[in-house]
């Protein structure tokens, strides 16, 4: 059997397949469909300083080969995560990574320092790319100075593996990646959703309550793949690739483009049991291509 394990910062993943924040709940939602401990990692829902209700309904629109969402970081806040959710999920035999969001650097700092104390949370993913909140969110991820500022601040209080999740809504994503690498990130993940919009022509109204929302799914895969390729060439830290991965072939494309690991997002909605199929598919691919280690295909194109 080929080796599937990869390394992100201090984290050794049993395989390169993780689930993307906001698309896999806290993992528990998928227990009925497969053994979630077989995953390389689970990135849980975006967590903020205090409870957020998110945006009003409607928050979703279907688009060609994709969807728009405008959930807007609905979550019960970091304290609730620590008291209620963490105890339930902490003993899952895979890495549980928390996606950290906020409106201000202080909020990010508060969440990250609290999570730093949790023994079974080996890493956080800093979400500086959420397009669905009025303040903060994507604003941090679309300018180098602010991306650097928030990453540097977090780096000071967070001592485990720090992944920074980049926004694709920028002119030059390689530059952003280099900026956060310089500011101390152990890894970058990309892409978050692309800012999009849907209109109901008959009702003459935007479909989403927030007018714009974040585009995900196979529609964005070519853009995500290009960005992962550009970033992987630009930085030395490991890159986690995502955006429209639906099957093993897609996942392998991201790894060939330079991703050390991948995340599966929207695909979980179409097939809640897709992740183990992707893990198996990667293994089959390696066997077929006579690779003994998944690391051999990273950046191979």
């Amino acid at each position, binding site marked *: 059997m080929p080796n599937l394990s990869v390394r992100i910062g201090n984290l050794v993943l049993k395989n390169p397949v993780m689930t993307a924040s*906001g*698309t*896999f*709940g806290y993992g528990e*939602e*998928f227990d*009925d*469909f497969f053994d979630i401990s077989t995953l390389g990692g689970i990135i849980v*829902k975006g967590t903020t300083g205090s409870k957020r*209700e*998110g945006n*009003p*309904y*409607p*928050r*979703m629109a*279907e*688009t*060609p*080969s*994709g*969807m728009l*969402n405008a*959930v807007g970081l*609905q979550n019960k806040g970091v304290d609730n995560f620590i008291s209620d959710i963490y105890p339930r999920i902490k003993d899952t035999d895979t890495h549980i990574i928390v996606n950290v969001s906020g409106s201000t650097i202080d909020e990010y700092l508060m969440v990250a320092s609290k999570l730093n104390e949790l023994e079974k949370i080996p890493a956080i993913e800093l979400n500086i790319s959420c397009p669905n909140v009025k303040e903060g969110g994507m604003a941090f991820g679309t300018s180098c100075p602010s991306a650097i500022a928030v990453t540097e601040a977090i780096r000071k209080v967070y001592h485990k593996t720090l992944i920074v999740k980049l926004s694709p809504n920028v002119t030059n994503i390689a530059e952003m990646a280099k900026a956060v690498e310089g500011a101390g990130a152990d890894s970058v993940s990309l892409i978050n959703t692309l800012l999009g919009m849907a209109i109901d022509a008959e009702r003459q109204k935007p479909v989403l309550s927030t007018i714009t929302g974040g585009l995900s*799914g196979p529609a964005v895969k070519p853009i995500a793949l290009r960005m992962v390729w550009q970033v992987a060439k630009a930085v030395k830290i490991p890159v986690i690739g995502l955006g429209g991965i639906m099957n093993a072939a897609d996942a392998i494309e991201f790894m060939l483009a330079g991703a050390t690991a991948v995340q599966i997002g*929207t695909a*979980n*909605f*179409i*097939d*809640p*049991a897709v992740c183990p199929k992707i893990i198996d598919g990667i293994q089959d691919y390696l066997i077929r291509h006579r690779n003994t280690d998944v690391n051999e295909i990273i950046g191979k194109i």
Partner: protein
Amino acid sequence: MKNKFIHDMLVLDNKNLNTNYFLLTLQPPVEMPIVKAGQFAQVEIKDAKNTFLRRPLSVHDVNYKENTIKLLVQIVGEGTQKLSEIKKGESLNMIYPLGNSFSFPDSDNVLLVGGGCGIAPLLYLARIFSEKGIKVTTLVGGATNADILETDEYLKFGDVLITTMDASIGEKGLVTQHSIFKEDNFRFSKIYTCGPQPMMKALAIIAKEKGIPCEVSLENMMACGIGACLCCVVDTIDGNKCTCTEGPVFDYKELKGWN
């Protein structure tokens, strides 16, 4: 214990009720899990260029003996159109049973009100209630008699009342204009309803006036159907709740803007 399943269902029958509605009879490859009235399935739509997500459809009826489940579907767009073309012997992938369910009433004379394909979840509910000895009356409304479906089935479990906008069958008007609501002595102790939101809201107002409980089944747009995406929320007195896991059935009193 597992509660939710992904099954490739065998299509035993696809019955065209009329140009807009069809009825699927499906069989899982294993023994049917326990399904409650009001629950739904997330159905995969294959081979459709513009349909990316699954489609939520209520459980219309369940027959444990024959190991079958029925879906009653209205054709409204590409997804339901493609689904209407599925043939006997083909397979249909679905995730089920999802969501909460209607709750039992405290007393035994209830009114089920369905508008259009909103009647879908009410047949199974009528069956279950009548099995428990609860007296059921079903009121169905539609634009015209083509929207009034399967009344034979509902008749097995109690009276059936009908309204249509064009009076082609039953009383003329909206369901809420039916004469039962004008009777001095309102017969029913609880209302269960599914259908267009304006209809359900109007029923909630009636329930409030009459001082009786009313459960409504929402059809919010869904991506995952299993509580993972938070796209399907409804604003309640306790904040946003997921229609797919904490619903689709809600006491109207929980819903903001409904009372």
